[in-house]
């Protein structure tokens, strides 16, 4: 990864500076999935829950990725899967960033007892392995994609809180902030106008990288039966079905490749963005 990234940090004529090879590769993969997600109902060969043919057909001209135990088209289901994974990942990251950054910024800016309380909460949450905590929360709330999403927000927000707090602590010592304070700006104004705008780079890089991880965690929760309910064409759920029919490799192959490509896409994009926005953290 680092080889590719460094090799492409040289500025090339005609391309903006951020357009490195990993960014473009990641962008293309993600653009593909976004387009698929938005347009799939218009051109999908079959319905995702339709019993489209004989069960357990290996990949063939009619069913590019074969059919599953109920004769559903694996290719169609794989493509439909993105309509669950991406929006959930987006929502989870958005909520985690919103909650985490707000609390992190308050902790870093206000300091004192508020900082201590928030950061201890962060420590406690981060002390659990993410998958275990997500499983526990989902099990408590009840299975389902919505509850899985809530569980993941609970797992993810502390990461952003810690990151944001560190950024705020650094930026608030800068001279322009002192100048703003000296000129009589209110504390909220100082935070929002003079500190936060300088804190976003690592957050954006992290959020992009985390997108892939959330997709993976959604799939994991569905795999163990805590996420999507059948017959939702969710990737983890599909892989779980495939595991039951181990010798029919194609049932799990489609969603497996889909997860791989989307995680890879986000990692490429995140890597490239990091090189551009926050090269020190590389």
């Amino acid at each position, binding site marked *: 990864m680092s080889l590719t990234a460094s090799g492409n940090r040289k500025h090339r004529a005609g391309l903006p500076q951020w357009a490195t090879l990993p960014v473009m590769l990641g962008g293309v993969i993600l653009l593909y999935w976004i387009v698929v997600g938005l347009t799939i109902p218009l051109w999908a060969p079959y319905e995702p829950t*339709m*019993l489209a043919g004989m*069960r357990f057909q290996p990949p063939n001209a009619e069913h590019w990725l074969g059919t599953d135990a*109920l*004769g559903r088209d694996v290719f169609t289901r794989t493509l439909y899967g993105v309509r669950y994974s991406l929006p959930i990942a987006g929502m989870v990251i958005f909520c985690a960033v919103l909650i985490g950054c707000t609390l992190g910024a308050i902790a870093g800016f206000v300091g004192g007892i508020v900082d201590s309380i928030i950061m201890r909460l962060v420590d406690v949450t981060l002390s659990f392995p993410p998958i275990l905590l997500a499983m526990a929360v989902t099990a408590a709330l009840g299975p389902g994609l919505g509850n899985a999403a809530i569980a993941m927000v609970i797992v993810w927000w502390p990461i952003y809180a810690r990151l944001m707090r560190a950024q705020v602590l650094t930026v608030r010592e800068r001279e322009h902030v002192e100048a703003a304070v000296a000129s009589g700006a209110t504390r909220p104004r100082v935070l929002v106008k003079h500190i936060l705008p300088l804190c976003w780079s690592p957050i954006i890089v992290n959020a992009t990288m985390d997108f892939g991880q959330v997709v993976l965690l959604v799939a994991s929760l569905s795999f163990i039966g805590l996420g999507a309910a059948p017959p939702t064409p969710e990737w983890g759920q599909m892989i779980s079905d495939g595991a039951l029919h181990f*010798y029919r490799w194609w049932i799990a192959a489609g969603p497996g490749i889909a997860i791989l490509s989307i995680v890879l896409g986000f990692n490429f994009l995140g890597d490239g963005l990091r090189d551009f926005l926050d090269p020190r953290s590389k």
Partner: protein
Amino acid sequence: MKSHLRSLILAGTGAALLAAAAMPGVAIAQDQPLVIARNLEINSLDPHRAFCDTCQIYLSSTYQGLVRLAADDRSIEPLLATEWTANEDQTQFTFTLHPDAVFSDGSPVEAKDVKWTFERLKNVQADPSFMMNGLVSIDTPDDKTVVVNMESPNSEFIGILAAPYAGIINSDVATENGAIAGEDAASADQAETWFLANSAGSGPYVLDTYRPDDELRFRVNENYWGEAPAISEIVIDQVADAVSQAQMLQSGSADIAMQVDPDTASTISSPDITIETVPSYNFIYVMFSPGAQGAELLDLEVRQAMAYAIDYQGAIDFTVGGEGALQASPIPNGFPGTDGLPMPEENLDKAREILASKGLEDGFTLDITVASLNVYGVDLTLLMQKLQQDLARINVAINIQPVASAVWREQTANPGIPFSARFYAPDYYGSAQYVQFFGMLPDTFWERRASGQGKVDLVNQRQVELFEQALAASGDRMNELYHEIALEMIKDRIIVPVVSPNLILAYRNEIEGVRYSACCNLPLAELSRK
């Protein structure tokens, strides 16, 4: 290189086997633990609280009933009782116990143990307690004679006694460990935990260890009074899915795989493995619970419409690759009274017509749960997805939530599940068990659950009367009565059988004595190595 190595190992193993066969040490093979791969799914090992397929295997190997089901799966043979008689109206049964029968601790099997066992089975009020319905009193004129008095005629009582749950317990040992047979047994009995680590029967095996979700280990009963079984130690290994079971079988880490489905069986090509497909009395059914939360719409007509919308043949094809049979009523094909019953019918027009007449042509939605289980080769979640597709054709949407089997059991009792799928295997050869479990008679297992513990009245008086008559009848008259009961059960549309899957027996070639038993699944004492 790999194949050379494999040849070498095979040759070595072959030579070793030949050498073993040539020497008196052949007994060594029988001393090796025999490993069975199976999803344990055990709810209890207390003979009177257990109610599961593995429980049948366990109980029939560690305990013995007064009688047992013969290998033809129909007739009854003596076991602890050498002979028995019934009075003319089938209300009093007298048994003479075998003089040599002893429990695993060496103490003799006596009439008091039989009395204690049957009373406890009735009084703990657990799942198999229905088998002692109508028991009034038990007299023990001497140590080896038992007289059972029933409230009303029960022509099937002898058959019931072949069920694994009616195995006789060593009452002295069980009582010492907290077991109670009195009328307060349901609340006062404390022995369930003790039974998880100990058996107290007279069967060919005793419980060695049970580790939930890991293994159930049997060792031979040193004091067994009958012919000693060939294998001295048997382990049932927890292996949840069919694929892993098949893999264990092929790799030699298991000798018998018990829940390999037809799809997985078709992938096994090893010449070392025997695969037999036999018809079974097991079946998968769907049930409607009009008394459950969210099931207000499920009146008789709507249930009828939904039953018409099911593609039964398709369900057999999709779940077991066609390796199964249709089943008419909750009494399985081949049991008394089932000849000539009308098979379930798919009729979409009728289904739509019924719903339209109720103003439900736009359908409705049901939230349901199903146990994530693969039984008899049928994945229940997969089956529900197939039914989901079928019902969508009449605009009935079902949202499926798979849950653990134990959770499912609890939910059926409270708050109830409007529509779900489950399985059943017989406990003995006789139709009464199905009426007592599935029939809409007061207080049967499914009458309670389907009615939401009595929220809606589902009791079918005609069934109650017919069943009373059936228990007093015998021969052809009994068959006729069960036939009528079966027709009533079909009409109720509470339990709708979907498939009676064929059973796959998959085992390594050197194992002998593997057979399906209607009461007990797999009789362990009959197993041996060639």
